[in-house]
């Protein structure tokens, strides 16, 4: 089992606001992330694919295919977009790192061309990130 990780960066805006809560509660819970005009981040996404290297090509997954998939599913959908208004998969969810990572997982997992999706790590800033993976996927890539 070998893990391969591809990193991409995208920029997007978002706002944390739950319409079921009062403005005061939103402000208390989300602080400056509740600013009515939103704000943005440079996100870094690390996508890790697990598999055995193909005996002919030596690859776990063809990086060109993976790059294309990330362009199609993530960049086109999220880069220079407002996550609250322009990403239907996030409709009704607060676009936190946790939720965006899970949406990206769900977009990518069925379409990984070779191997299997092992981990999605989404950095909202260098000091804050969320990991999404299958429960029970081993630390080194093996099912456990």
């Amino acid at each position, binding site marked *: 089992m070998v893990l391969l990780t591809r990193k991409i960066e995208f920029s997007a805006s978002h706002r944390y606001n739950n319409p079921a809560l009062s403005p005061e509660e939103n402000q208390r819970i989300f602080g400056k992330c509740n600013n009515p005009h939103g704000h943005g981040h440079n996100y870094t996404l690390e996508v890790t694919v697990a598999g055995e290297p193909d005996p002919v090509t030596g690859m776990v997954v063809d990086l060109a295919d993976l790059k294309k998939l990330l362009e199609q599913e993530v960049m086109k959908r999220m880069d220079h977009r407002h996550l609250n208004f322009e990403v239907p998969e996030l409709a*009704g969810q607060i676009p936190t790192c946790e939720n965006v990572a*899970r949406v990206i997982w769900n977009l990518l997992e069925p379409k990984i061309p070779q191997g299997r999706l092992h981990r999605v790590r989404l950095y909202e800033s260098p000091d*804050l990130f969320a990991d999404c993976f299958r429960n029970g996927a081993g630390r080194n890539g093996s099912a456990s």
Partner: protein
Amino acid sequence: MTALGYAGGDLKIELGRRYRFAASHRLHSAQMSDAENARIYGKCNNACGHGHNYTVEISISGDVDPATGMIANLADLDSFVQREIIEPFDHRSLNEEVDAFRAEVPTTENLCIEIYRRMQAFPLAKLERVRVEETSNNSFEYAGDEAVSDSDGAL
């Protein structure tokens, strides 16, 4: 908010947050002679100590609250870490000012374990692991003694 479209179930989400503090330490074990200490710890045994800019990475897990989209409110995590880790360690001598290191050598292995011990009291999420970078070239990780097996997800 209702009908959040969770895939739920067997997907696991962890949140990682990085913090920084600067502290001094000296590696010296009372159980060894001065010569042995010097041989084993080298310049880290320098009698007057030395310091590092430490980076601490805390990973937590739990259910993502549909109302907030969060495993735990970041402000709560930040204030807990500030109180339990940053204030007691930042710009301190680990040997002289942190009780745990009166008896233990303040290697970054032991520092990891001490930070893990303190973070286990965080009431709002499950602590997954603690990773400490002593320098940009040396990092250490502790996930509790049971988690040395590979059952806790992706590295």
